[in-house]
């Protein structure tokens, strides 16, 4: 009789301690998960608000290198906006993107030659280009070999070389090793 009670107690204690262990672990882990999610939900709310705000601002960089076709398309659109022919695009020379030292950005430059254009026309092309792509910067300008147009406006026409610089946001910095 006594032995039976001892066995009953031993088994009961085993079950009770197991229940306590498992229940305690379940309680602790669920509570941890809940607290963590509580913290996360506040962060998520802040993130969502910031994402919505940032998305309304124009981007100052692109997420991937701009292809030649894209640049060509943007330039053609820009010259067509001011009523010029795409023939004025003389050359487009993309350069390899290079990382800005110790940063999460790369710079991609594209040298473009347009001719013939007046300074005013070039200004309109530049504005159209910058409006279409806010992440673009014209970092270099060169006006060369002026000539006078044949029309009556007596305008100076130039060969314009520009360097378009795209900022590429690329946080994957490769190890120097």
């Amino acid at each position: 009789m006594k032995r039976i009670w001892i066995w009953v107690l031993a088994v009961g204690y085993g079950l009770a301690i197991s229940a306590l262990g498992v229940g305690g672990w379940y309680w602790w882990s669920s509570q941890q998960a809940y607290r963590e999610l509580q913290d996360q939900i506040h962060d998520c709310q802040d993130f969502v608000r910031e994402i919505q705000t940032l998305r309304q601002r124009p981007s100052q960089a692109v997420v991937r290198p701009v292809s030649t076709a894209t640049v060509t398309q943007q330039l053609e659109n820009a010259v067509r906006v001011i009523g010029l022919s795409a023939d004025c695009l003389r050359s487009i020379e993309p350069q390899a993107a290079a990382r800005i030292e110790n940063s999460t950005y790369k710079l991609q430059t594209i040298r473009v030659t347009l001719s013939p254009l007046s300074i005013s026309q070039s200004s309109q092309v530049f504005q159209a280009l910058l409006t279409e792509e806010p992440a673009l910067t014209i970092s270099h300008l060169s006006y060369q070999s002026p000539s006078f147009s044949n029309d009556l406006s007596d305008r100076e026409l130039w060969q314009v070389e520009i360097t378009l610089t795209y900022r590429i946001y690329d946080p994957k910095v490769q190890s120097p090793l």
Partner: protein
Amino acid sequence: MATWWAIIVDESRWTLMNGANQEIARVSVDHPGEQPPQEFALAVSNTLREMGYRQDPLLLGIDPADCLTTSFPLESLPAGSTQEALNYHLESLLPVSAEEIAVASIRGATTICTVVVSPTSWRPFLEALDNAGLVITQILPWTWLFLATSVLGKFPQPTGLLIWQVPRGFEFWSYSQGTITTWRSLNNDSLEVVRCLRQLQAECAVIPPVDFYSEDPTPMVNILRNAGLTLVTGHAISQSDVFREAIPNLLCEKIQTPLNLQTSLFPGVMRWKSIRSSLMFAACSWMVLIGSMGVYGFIQGSQFHSAAQTLREQQKKLYQEVFPKQTPPMAVRSRLASEVTKLRGLQGGTQTHRQVVPALPTLARWLTLVPTPNQATINSIEVSGRQIEVSGEVLQVGEAASIAETLTKANFQVTGPSTTQLNGGGFAYVITALEASPSPDSPGRIP
């Protein structure tokens, strides 16, 4: 069916008895000797169970030599006193504590006869028997079983003295008008009986008729008669007869007429049983408490779990506010944080602004500040960031100098103008200017 169970212990063996109506079964087992009480008790228990024992009340009749016998007036006890009060009264008379003694008593009209079981020799067996599952409800010397039921109930005279020669001494019972007095002599010398009777004669003046019980009463009867005690009757009774016939038959009769014996087991044993029950209760309570805490943990855990599920759903809704067509990933927060980092990066940073300086504002400023004079021509314009280099021709060197001066006043750092005289007249000039800092009123576009 009326049944009884008894264990009678004498010097040579333990006799296990069972009576059902008039049928009596006996099994004898040898004394334990050096055997540990636990093992012996288990063997006794097994034998009893083979005889059909099932947790019935059990009477334990032990050797009278293991008992202390005394009697005292009832008036020394408080009225209506309990067995426990009797134990504590005996405690005041004996050099042992009340928890250590088991007491049996027979109450007369004015006196109470008690027997105290020697604690030291029987406690281990009692505990072992109890642990083996035997329910011992009475413990007393087996002489009492015989005397209290057989002899005292059938006193032929109102006053008398009963002496029983037991293996290690004499048992004295004095009865007078309902008053019973008992004592024991542990000395087996027959002169002890004579001495005792002389003392009784000195106290009571008259010695009542004496009934002497022994296996061979004749020698003692002769001694007493020679000592002047004429009213002595000898009764031959052997211990084996007592065990074999008298006690079982008396116990069978006892079922019909309950034995007027009051007994208590060792209170210490009872206390231990009580403590053991309490410990069992405490152990069960702790077990239930621990189990309940585990269950409580489960319940609380599931509540946290369901609350966490709600928060996860909330996270998914937040995610779909900014990514409406995407399936929410497991790590919503990380994904949103990554998106924030990306968007911040796409907004550019100060380091990027330092690296890439737009050329257009500088050109626009030049054109605003320096309208081309009629006499001057421009052959080329180079703008890199905030540095501008203009080359052309002028008729007078002063015109180029005038341009440089205008730029200097507008916060340009001007180098030159460098001029070269042309063969056909006029001067070629080159002006290099660096805009010190972007002007807040810079138009940003070419006028």
